[in-house]
């Protein structure tokens, strides 16, 4: 690993000036960053550890929303009683990700900002616009089974790997950041960027901006769930996943939240499907039409065309299950 300096400040006021100069990165649990540094893909000169900044609280705010500190570990968040009760989709998404050990290490901020990646991103021998801007993309005509079908460009088709972010997208979470210019709030759906022709730039944060918290609006009355389809039952990234919340009254969809993982270059909020479903009949035919409409925008490659069918079927299955579970929570 390339040498670097390490600093563990105890307050945000010290962390931000330390974390702003070029060549500096914040360190959460290190489960993504340390791996990429060992591979030489990330080569920071300085690391600023954010786990001493007292960002590890989870608190309910007066308006009923939930504020989650950026340094809260994934396992702690998944097990929190308020999350299990009011935001089941989030707890399920977290528990479907990585392994028990990794969830104990991974932080909320690090999970949000883990790199979007595909096998070629890791390979020195391969062309990758994300690793080496302008070098091309070997995934386009290569081994692209894991790659995205929504939000892709001719420069990059890597899928966003996070399960947590898919649930946060469906929940309308807001990311709180603090940087040299002060604080601001970014809707989760606007934190990640589509690859376009600059796939090396993955998010909308400015230099030195530190994620301090994620805030969830008060719990929905609708029932919610997360389903992940993958090559093995556990400890694997999603081929396709669905986060959904559904409420039905008089056989009509009165509330719907739908987001997809494994198929998008960013956590994919399925706005088109939501638009078609809201106010319409709560039946399988409508679910299928909405799923197909969302996936109509897909651009497939030789290895990942199956993801369209898989995502559609998973959306339908999840909505069917949520409507069967029917009224109540």
């Amino acid at each position, binding site marked *: *690993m*390339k*040498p*670097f*300096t*390490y600093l*563990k400040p105890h307050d945000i006021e010290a962390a931000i000036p330390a974390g702003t100069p070029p060549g500096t990165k914040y*360190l959460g*649990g*290190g*489960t993504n960053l*340390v*791996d990429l*540094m*060992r591979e030489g893909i990330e080569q920071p000169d300085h*690391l600023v*550890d954010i*786990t001493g900044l007292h960002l590890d609280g989870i608190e309910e705010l007066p308006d009923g929303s939930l504020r989650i500190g950026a340094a809260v570990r994934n*396992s702690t968040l*998944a*097990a929190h009683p308020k999350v*299990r009760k009011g935001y*089941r989709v989030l*707890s*399920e998404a977290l*528990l*479907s990700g*990585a*392994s*028990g*050990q*990794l969830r*104990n*290490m991974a932080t909320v901020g690090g999970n949000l900002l883990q790199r979007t990646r595909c096998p070629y991103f890791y390979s020195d021998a391969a062309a990758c616009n994300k690793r080496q801007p302008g070098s091309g993309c070997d995934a386009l005509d290569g081994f692209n089974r894991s790659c995205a079908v929504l939000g892709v460009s001719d420069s990059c088709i890597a899928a966003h790997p996070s399960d947590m972010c898919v649930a946060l997208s469906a929940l309308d979470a807001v990311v709180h950041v603090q940087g040299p210019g002060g604080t601001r709030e970014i809707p989760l759906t606007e934190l990640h960027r589509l690859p376009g022709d600059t796939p090396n730039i993955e998010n909308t944060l400015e230099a030195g901006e530190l994620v301090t918290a994620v805030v969830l609006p008060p719990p929905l009355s609708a029932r919610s769930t997360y389903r992940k389809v993958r090559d093995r*039952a*556990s*400890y694997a990234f999603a081929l396709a996943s669905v986060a959904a919340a559904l409420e039905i009254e008089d056989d009509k969809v009165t509330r719907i939240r739908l987001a997809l993982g494994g198929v998008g270059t960013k956590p994919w909020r399925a706005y088109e499907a939501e638009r078609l479903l809201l106010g319409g009949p709560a039946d399988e035919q409508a679910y299928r039409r909405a799923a197909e409409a969302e996936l109509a925008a897909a651009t497939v490659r030789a290895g990942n065309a199956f993801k369209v069918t898989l995502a559609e079927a998973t959306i339908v299955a999840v909505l069917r299950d949520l409507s069967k579970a029917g009224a109540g929570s």
Partner: protein
Amino acid sequence: MTEIQIKLNGSVERIDVDPWVSLLDLLRETLKITGPKKGCDQGACGACTVLADGRRINACLALAVAYDGSEITTIEGVSHPIQEAFIHRDGFQCGYCTPGQICSALGMLGEYQAGMPSAVTEAGEVPAGKPSPEEIRERMSGNLCRCGAYNGIIMAIQDVAGTENR
């Protein structure tokens, strides 16, 4: 170099360490604690699992400097009925993954007792008593065994579940 202090298997160690050294390399190369194994060095196998302040982690993705002040337990510091149970149940063949399996299992049983749910926990409520084989399989998925001793591992863990309170 930064001086850090860890409590390793009960004894306090003060060591100078470069920031880019992983906890796994510190243990294996500097301190000659070779129970934790370097299977993949990228978080994908669990052979390097140790307990840090009682929580199971992958030592290969942990920077040693970030664990200054922590209490680290490796298989060398474990004395627990689970070790006998692994022998009785044939919980290993070559034994390479075993130090990680056992540290992971102890951390996992603590999580289960604390009521932390897993992806297969029904309705998110962790039932009292021993974890089911299905629960153990899911919760131990971060530890691969290339000899495929999984059935023995699961039985060994079930045998001792509930006795982990030392």
